[in-house]
């Protein structure tokens, strides 16, 4: 009886995804114990909630997810507009909306809502895709991205933009258009530069030359590269990172936790982390390849690449090759909201895997 129940309970869970995710979560706890032990309990609670959310989503079939795509998207956009009008200002940005009983960050909803909507959109288009179809998709993508960018929240808007672009890419946007767009955006860089906020420009300049302001704007990035570099091949050992333990690393339990990892476990540890993310992405792409419907395939592909984006942007910024934007290390950084979103994504992948194509065409 109990065995049966247990079997029913673990049935929707994909073993390989669960193993990789579990290993990352354990690593995260280990890091937290070193960087910020007082947050261990909260992080454990966050992980439990996130796991529950993952399990729930793993049990929702992709067809049902597809039905939810449009409502979630519309709700997200509605809340974004409400935030722009009535949101709370914190640290100079209008990102939070107070609904009276709870404060929400609507942009979080669109991190998964955006790829869901576009996957739904392309699933509905059964004809050959005409330019106007692509154009409509771009409109659907640009509206929320623009709203988030205006908050301003460059990090999240880029994440949402990229997740939408992945869907469009997987839906088969012709290569010549892709290359054309790439060339055009490179040409438009100076224009984009003019549109950035001052603090955003500062971040880019800081990445290029952090030593210009070592105690101010450059402090984060200098200290995190020192942490990683001084980790060497095998690291200084768990709990022994001087950068971490002496408070030189700012935000060491959130966006900069990778620097703690690099300092205490060295290149060896970094490779383990890269391998884990590669395995996670490989598994995700496999699931995408065997998705039963256009919706399932596009969603799985885009979700998988979201993990890639998070991991690449975070490790890139902490190691000093990308400007500092607020992107956490996926499944590792402290913080409940991001953790729940990412575990939900894992849950969706599991659901798609459970409803895969059984006959290989």
């Amino acid at each position, binding site marked *: 009886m109990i065995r049966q129940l247990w079997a029913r309970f673990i049935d929707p869970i994909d073993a390989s995804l669960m193993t990789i995710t579990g290993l990352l979560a354990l690593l995260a706890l280990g890091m937290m114990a070193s960087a910020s032990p007082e947050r261990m309990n909260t992080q454990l609670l966050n992980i439990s909630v996130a796991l529950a959310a993952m399990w729930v989503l793993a049990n929702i079939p992709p067809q049902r997810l597809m039905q939810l795509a449009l409502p979630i998207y519309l709700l997200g956009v509605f809340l974004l507009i409400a935030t722009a009008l009535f949101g709370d200002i914190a640290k100079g940005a209008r990102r939070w909306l107070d609904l009276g009983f709870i404060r929400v960050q609507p942009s979080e909803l669109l991190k998964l809502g955006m790829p869901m909507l576009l996957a739904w959109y392309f699933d509905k288009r*059964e*004809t*050959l*895709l005409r330019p106007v179809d692509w154009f409509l998709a771009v409109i659907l993508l640009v509206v929320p991205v623009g709203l988030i960018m205006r908050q301003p929240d460059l990090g999240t808007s880029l994440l949402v933009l990229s997740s939408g672009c*992945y869907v469009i*890419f*997987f839906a*088969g946007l012709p290569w010549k258009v892709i290359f054309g767009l790439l060339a055009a955006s490179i040409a438009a860089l100076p224009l984009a530069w003019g549109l950035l906020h001052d603090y955003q420009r500062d971040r880019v300049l800081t990445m290029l030359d952090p030593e210009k302001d070592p*105690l101010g704007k450059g402090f984060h990035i200098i*200290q995190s*590269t*020192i*942490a*990683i*570099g*001084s*980790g*060497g*091949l095998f690291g200084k050992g768990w709990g022994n990172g*001087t*950068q971490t*333990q*002496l408070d*030189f690393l700012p935000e060491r339990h959130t966006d900069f936790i990778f620097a703690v990892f*690099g300092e205490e476990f*060295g*290149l060896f540890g*970094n*490779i383990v982390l*890269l391998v884990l*993310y*590669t395995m996670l*992405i*490989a598994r995700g*792409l496999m699931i*995408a*390849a065997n998705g039963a419907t*256009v919706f399932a*395939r*596009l969603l799985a*592909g885009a979700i*998988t*690449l979201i993990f*890639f984006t998070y991991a*690449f942007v975070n*490790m*890139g910024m902490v*190691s*000093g*090759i990308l400007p500092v934007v607020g992107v956490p290390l996926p499944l590792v950084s402290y913080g409940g909201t991001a953790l729940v979103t990412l575990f939900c994504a894992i849950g969706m992948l599991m659901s798609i895997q459970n409803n895969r194509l059984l006959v290989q*065409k």
Partner: protein
Amino acid sequence: MEFRNPQESLEQFRQRLTVAGGIVLVAFAVLLARFVWLQIVQYDYFTTRAEENRITLVPVTPNRGLIVDRNGKVLARNYAGFTLEITPSRVPNLELTIDELAEVLEIQPKDRKRFKKLREENKNFESIPIRTRLSDEEVARFIARRYRFPGVEVKARLFRQYPEGEFASHLLGYIGRLSERDEVKVEEAGFTANYRGTEHFGKAGLEQRYEFELHGTSGFEQVEVNAGGHAVRTLASTAPTPGNNLTLTVDAELQKIAEQAFGARRGALVAIDPSTGGILALVSMPTYDPNLFVDGIDTQSWMDLNESDQKPMINRALNSANPPGSTFKPFMALAALTYGKRTPNQAIADGGGFNFGGHFFRDDKKGGHGSVDMYKSIVVSCNTYYYTLANDMGIDNISRFMGDIGLGKRTGVDIDGESEGVLPSQEWKKKRFKRPEQQKWYAGETISIGIGQGYNAYTPIQLALATATLANNGVMFKPHLVNYITDARSGERKMIEPQPIKAISWKQEHVDVIKNAMVGVIKEGTGARAFAGATYSAGGKTGTAQVFSLKGADVKTAHLDEKFRDHALFIAFAPAEKPKIALAVLVENAGFGAQSAAPIARQVIDYHLLGKRPNAPAPTDEEAEDSLP
């Protein structure tokens, strides 16, 4: 309309997945290359920088702001001194090292104890003092043998010093080593970065309340360090900005005269300028030496201070709430006029007491004072007058009026931890007691409230504020100790403007009646002996707070065991025409107010108005007569 071929689009999708996988691999390869560059190729460079980090970014603690009195006399300052400090992580055998150090310079057991305690509170790589305040000779001796002690350094530091020692300690307060609880406060205030190098924090008094004004802004020094761990040169530095200076409203000389007037007696005195609320003196006796706390107080001194039955750590001026005794009477009389319960000339016949509900409330004078009007009731401190008055007024009127002049409320003075005291009222009793029969207010209880006994309990600063408000004809100013804060960088003065809390609408003729009666107390009443020969006119009132109830016993309190003796109280303002000072004095276990408290007030007022210095502590007037409630 052409439909898509599912097979074809699946093929295309899988192609795109492969491309995506390729991009992922390339991107991760770039990251890997970056890691190899940082962690293998540049490893030595970053190791050096991480190593340097510990030493190179040195926060420079700013000089703490000074505290000076209204005339510029320095009450809290800093001086440079040397400490001997150990970084435990760089010392292989700590015990041995300390033993060897003890051969070079004196290290007492209490130094070792303090070091051990600090080690538990700090991290291993932090530098912890083993000896403070080294003499020049000791520094020289250590420097000559420095090579033997890696991880041990002499550091120049600034120490807080209270040059006057055991003086004004309750108002100045003290700083001590920054504790974890202090760090929480710093974090809440958003000053964590600014406190990176700070080791001290205000723990009491003005040092505590004005911590963030006094602290200043930390600077940073980038120091190049050689292989031996010693600083070679400074590469760059941002100078710290010293903390802001506090200039007090307090007159240190007056404070000193007041403290000396107490002699060996315990008690408190608060003197206020009625027209601004500026505190001229805030005394709590006995005092303690705040210098003891600066480097972390040793266990023995801490126990001595805390276990002494003199209780020197209590700030009596703000925290000793006692029945006001007869000093309550002028305010009762003013309430009677304001609420129309008495006229000044209305007299009662005092036959020696007041009978209420079968209980006889005695007057202190056998046979009573005869015919007593309002003036006489204050001058001779007639209890019977106030027993009947209280009965006529009722508790609600009394508590409304007394609450209005700030009794039983925190005054808002700029020192933390002020006591509220007790303003008796029906609501108060309801809250205070659990059992229904105790929650009820009994009319009989109002009778002793009328002469300032019973549940009444007010702090000296509340009495001083009430007296100042009376002296100022009902306009109440918030009592404060700091006159202005001088910005260390710009020299700009931030004035603490006198803040009128409220203007109570009393009739001036009523106020004049009360003031006149209080002047009578000094001229011909219970305060006359203490103020004999005064060249100014002053108003005052003596009082006695019952500490221990003597039911029915008719004994002179002076012969009782000291701790059972009543507290002596005195309130006063002077000059009567245009008061420049209003004060309240409390002398613990000293008997009558006239005996002990009034002579102290005399010395304080003499100095403030005439600049006259006494040559001995205020005398005790053993002959003085006073109203025993």
